[in-house]
């Protein structure tokens, strides 16, 4: 079974996580036309991508850096660093 090696919550099965898609800049979301483009269009070729992932059991949000050609996760960071205290 595929697992993610998370520096915060340890080695967990990938099935506990949900991918919520690629990251979109806040600035792009302020203009409606730019927001529509950012939501539905982009560079969808294979590359290293920054994505939002939710760990369902703990309800913690993470930022992943993942290679969409190989499925290799390059880095995982907590979306809200203050959650780190709660985990510890």
């Amino acid at each position: 079974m595929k697992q993610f090696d998370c520096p915060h919550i340890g080695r967990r099965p990938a099935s506990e996580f949900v991918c919520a898609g690629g990251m979109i800049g806040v600035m792009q979301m302020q203009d409606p036309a730019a927001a529509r483009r950012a939501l539905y269009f982009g560079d969808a070729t294979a590359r290293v991508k920054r994505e939002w992932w939710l760990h369902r059991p703990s309800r913690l949000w993470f930022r992943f850096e993942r290679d969409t050609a190989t499925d290799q996760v390059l880095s995982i960071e907590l979306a809200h660093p203050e959650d780190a205290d709660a985990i510890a």
Partner: protein
Amino acid sequence: MAIRLLKYALDRNHAEPRYFNTPAEPRDSYDVVIIGGGGHGLACAYYLAQNHGIRRVAVFEKGYLGGGNTGRNTTIVRSNYLTPEGAKFYQRSVELFESLGEELDLNLFYSTRGHYTLAHSESTLRTMRWRAEVNKHFGIDSELVGPEEVKRACPQIDLSCGGQHPVCGALFHAPGSIVRHDAVAWGYARRASQLGVEIFQQTAVTGIEIEGGRVVGVQTSRGRIATGKVVSAVAGATPTVLKMVGLESPVDIVPLQACVSEPMKPWLDPIIVSGSLHVYVSQTARGELVMGASVDPAELHSTRSSLDFVTSLADQMLDLFPFLAGVKIVRQWAGMADMTPDFAPVMGKTGIPGFYLDAGWGTWGFKATPVCGETMAFTVAHDTNHRLIEPFGMTRFEELRMLGEKGAASVGH
């Protein structure tokens, strides 16, 4: 007998000719260049030559013919979609499929089985009733049936699903069929080739030339070719081709996996689908069960298959058919599905004159092969979107006119 066989083996003139001939080198120019030698691209080539008399057409395939999603799907053909746009479109596809073997002069093993989409909850039944009414409105044979009807058509099913999510009804679609997918690609290739279309395998398109805002040619691994019209029918490679013309992609690439069991005596006549359990299954003429599930959880440009997929699929299959516990899975594979946010395709003209797109085929592309070929050929020949594909334009995302096609395969309700 042995001497006849030996003579046949040594004879260069075999009775059965090759399906199509490939010229040694491509010409310098073509009227239309089609990127992708799968079912969609080959069907488009065939209808361009057959319906519109455009025969200076080349199909470039970077791998082998039908080796992409045409050869990786679960071969189901049906038209009981939810939106009026989808239902009309797929209905035309079923009509074309029903006479396609005759038209292509090839046995496609088109086998009408009846298609049951199981409901495990009241809310699913509600969506199905909606689907059935939309279907009936467009003359599509589609109706809601009770669990006893499912049991009659498929006595082996455990309607209680292990007690966890009992079947409370199903959407029944009598014309639901399976068809030999490779043969569809080969049949279109052979007839297109007979009409003058040239097909090049192992030939990648590496760039698309645009001058003054118009398409003027393509770069291939076998040199430059001049053309005023390019059709992209490349499923999982769509973002790469869009990048060649400087367009951003409305599709994301997600693997869709499938597998087959060892062959068994025939026991499963209908096609059984459960959106809630994420399984669809049919039995081939060879006796294998062909099974598919939902798409993988995240974007990935790879045809790797995973143990996670096959274990979760087996788990769901055993809920429906507990007696399969001792049956082995013999093969599994994946295709790269080009998913759109609203589960409907992206087709037709684009912002670049001479560049036509046939994409966004996610998990619903094989069953649309004939109608895609027919409508794309019309669109290319007349430089006007065919009326059946008008709702599928790329601008619908910017205009927030999404289609919400929840009748697509592996989409939960």
